[in-house]
C-alpha cells in the first residue's frame, strides 16, 4: 500500500488539481471525488459547486441522473445485485426485493449501522450462475430469497464476532 492511499482523502487537494475546471468538468470531478471518498458527501458537493460555480441542486440533479454516483458511504459489506437479463429471467427481482426487506434500505443506500450497502448493477458477467449477487466481490450463485436471508445473517454474525 502506498502512503497516499493511507491518508484521509482531501476534497480541496482534489479540486486544486483542477484549477481551471469549468462546468463541463463536473462529471469527471464527481467520479474522482467518489473514487477517493467512496461516495459524494454534502460537503464534497458544496465544495465542488463552489469550485465550478454551480449550485448544489444542479450537481445533485446531475449526479442522481447516473446510477454510478452514491450519496452514502459504502457499508462494510457492499452487496451488488445483478439485474441483467439472465438474472432477471431467473428471478433476480425477487432477490432484490428480499434484500431490500432484509436490509431495510433501497438500492443505493447504506444501512444505518453502516454494515451493508446495496447496489443494483446491470450485469456481473456471470450469467451461468444466475441469479447472482456479490458481497465485497465474493460471488453467490443461484440466489433465492431464502438464501438471501442466510447470506445476510452469516455476514451479520461475522461482523458481531469481530
Amino acid at each position: 500500500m502506498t502512503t497516499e492511499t493511507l491518508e484521509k482523502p482531501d476534497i480541496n487537494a482534489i479540486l486544486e488539481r483542477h484549477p481551471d475546471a469549468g462546468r463541463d468538468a463536473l462529471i469527471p470531478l464527481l467520479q474522482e471525488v467518489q473514487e477517493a471518498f467512496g461516495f459524494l458527501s454534502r460537503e464534497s458537493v458544496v465544495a465542488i459547486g463552489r469550485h465550478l460555480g454551480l449550485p448544489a441542486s444542479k450537481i445533485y440533479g446531475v449526479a442522481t441522473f447516473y446510477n454510478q454516483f452514491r450519496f452514502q458511504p459504502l457499508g462494510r459489506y457492499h452487496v451488488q445485485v445483478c439485474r441483467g437479463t439472465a438474472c432477471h429471467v431467473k428471478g433476480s427481482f425477487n432477490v432484490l426485493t428480499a434484500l431490500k426487506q432484509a436490509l431495510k434500505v433501497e438500492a443505493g443506500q447504506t444501512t444505518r449501522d453502516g454494515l451493508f450497502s446495496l447496489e443494483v448493477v446491470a450485469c456481473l458477467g456471470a450469467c451461468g450462475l444466475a441469479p447472482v449477487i456479490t458481497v465485497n466481490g465474493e460471488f453467490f450463485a443461484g440466489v433465492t430469497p431464502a438464501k438471501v436471508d442466510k447470506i445476510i445473517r452469516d455476514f451479520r454474525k461475522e461482523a458481531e464476532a469481530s
Partner: protein
Amino acid sequence: MVQMEINKRPFEAQEGETILDVVRRAGITVPTLCHIEGLTPTGACRVCVVEVEGMPGLVPSCSYPVAQGMKIYTHSPRAIRARKTIIELLLADHPDDCLYCVRNNRCDLQGLAADLGVRTQHYGGEKSAYREDVSSPAIIRDPNKCILCGKCVRVCEEIQGVSAIDFIGRGSRAHIGTAFDEGLNVSSCVNCGQCILVCPTGALSERSYVKEVLEALNNPDLTVVVSHAPSVSVTLGEEFGLPAGTDVDGIMCAALRQIGCDYVFDTAFTADLTIMEEGSELVHRIKNGGALPMLTSCSPGWIKFVEEFYPDLLDNLSTCKSPQQMMGAVIKSFFAERMGLDPKRIFSVSIMPCTAKKFEAARPEMMHEGETPDVDAVLTTRELARLFRMRGMDLKTMEPETADTPFGERTTAGKIFGASGGVMEAAIRSAYMLITGEELGDLNVKAVRGLEGRKEARLNINGLDVGVAVVSGLGNAAKLLDEIRAGRNDLHFVEVMTCPGGCIAGGGQPLDTDLTSVQARLRALYQLDETETKRTSHSNEWVQRLYREYLGAPLGEKSHHLLHTHYAKREVLL
C-alpha cells in the same frame, strides 16, 4: 424579413423569431405549459407542437425559429391530436383530485384538458407517489401534481439566481427537488414565490394561513388587527374581475371590517415610518463613516439571499425592520398600551403581496418581547381573495371606507413602496429634508421609476454627491453586489426588491400576473402619487405623533429596540 405562411395566410416575421412568437403575433393561440416569456425555451412540454409542411415530425413552436417560405399549420388534426395525447399522458400520472386542489379552476393543465376535449382516461397504470414538502413556512410543494415543465427551475435560476431546486433523478423517477432532496426549509430557497406564479398546476402553492385567521376572527377573546401592504390595493381587484391597476383600497378596508377584523391599518404607514428610520440611518452612515452603500431591508427574500450568498455584505444591510415587522412591533407595543390590550390577546394579520413575508413573520428576530410573534399570520393577496369569496364579499358593489387610526394614515411615499424604485424615491424625498431642512423642489425622481432590472442615478443634495441604485430580481441584485464586492464605491444607497418589478409582481399576487398587469399596477401607484397631496413620509402626521408620544426620535433608544434588528450568516446547501 422572412416570408412565411400561417394556416394558409401569408405572414412576415423577423429572422430569429420563434414560430410561437410569430403565431401569437398573428392572433392565434397555441397552448404551452412550459414557456416563459424572455427565458430560455426548453421545449419540455411539447404542447406547443405545430405542423410544418415538409417536416417529417411536428415541431415545438416555442423553441423553433421561423425560416423563409415556412408553411405552418397550428391547428391541423395531427397537431391537435398530439396535444391531446400529451395532456392525456400527463393526466395519467396526475392525481384526479381537482375539486380539492388549491388551483382548481386556475390550473393550466385542467384548462387545456377542457379546451382539448379530454373526456375519457385512455392511459392508466401506476402513478408516482411522492411526499408533499410542507417543511417551508411559505411554500408548499406537491411533486405528485408536477408535470416537469421546469418553469420553477428556470425562474429560480435565471431570474433569481438562487437555484434552490432542479431536476433530480431520471426517467419515470425524475422530479423537481432541492439538493439531496431535503425540505425547502433547509435549502437556499428564499421563499419569494416566483415559482408559484409560473407553475401551471397545483404543484406549488403558498402555505395558507386562512384557517388560522378564520379561527382568530371567530375567537371573541382575540382582537384581530389587520394591515395591508401598499401594493395589495392595486392588485386585489383582479381576483374579482376588475381591470388590472384598479385601486380597491377603501373597499378592501370595508370588506376586512365586514369579515370581522377589529382594526384595519395600512402598512404604508409603517413604510413612512421605515423611511424616517432608514433615511436617518443613511444620513448617519454617510456622516459617521458607516458601511456604504447601505442596502434596503424591506424585502425578506432578499434578506435571506444576503444571509446565504453575500454574508460579507451583512453590515451594509440597513438595520431597519421591514414595514410589515415595524407594523407588528408598534401594534403589539404602542397600540396595545394605548388601547389597554394584552399583546398576547392581539392577533395581528398582514395582507402581503409576498410569500417570503410568511417566513419573515416567523423569524426569531421578530418576536414581541421574545414571546409571541409581532405578526401572527400573513395572508397573500390570493389568500385574502379566497377569504373574501368564502365570506361572500362583493367588491364590485361595496362602499369604500377608510382605515383606522392610529396606523391608517399614509402618504403616497409609503404607497409607492409597492413598486421597484418606490422606497428609493420616498427615501430621497425625506433624506433631502433631513439633510437640508427644506423640501425637495421637484418630488418626482423619475430616474428610479420603471420596471427595468437596474436603475441608477446621481443626486446632488446641498453639495453632497449621492449615488443611488435600484435593482429588482435577485439575479440583477447579485450582479450589482458582485460589482460592490469587486470594489465599486460610488454608491451610497441601494434599493433591492426580490421580485422583478417589486411587490406589484410579488409571489403572493394574483396568478395572472404578467407584464401587462404589472405595468397597469405600476401606473396605478404613481397615479395616486400624482393626484394626492401628502407625498413625503415626514409629512405623515401620525408618524410625527408616534415619535412625539412614544418613540422619541428616529434611531432613538425605543426605535432601536422596536424597529431595528440584525441578521447573521445562514448555512444552507448552496
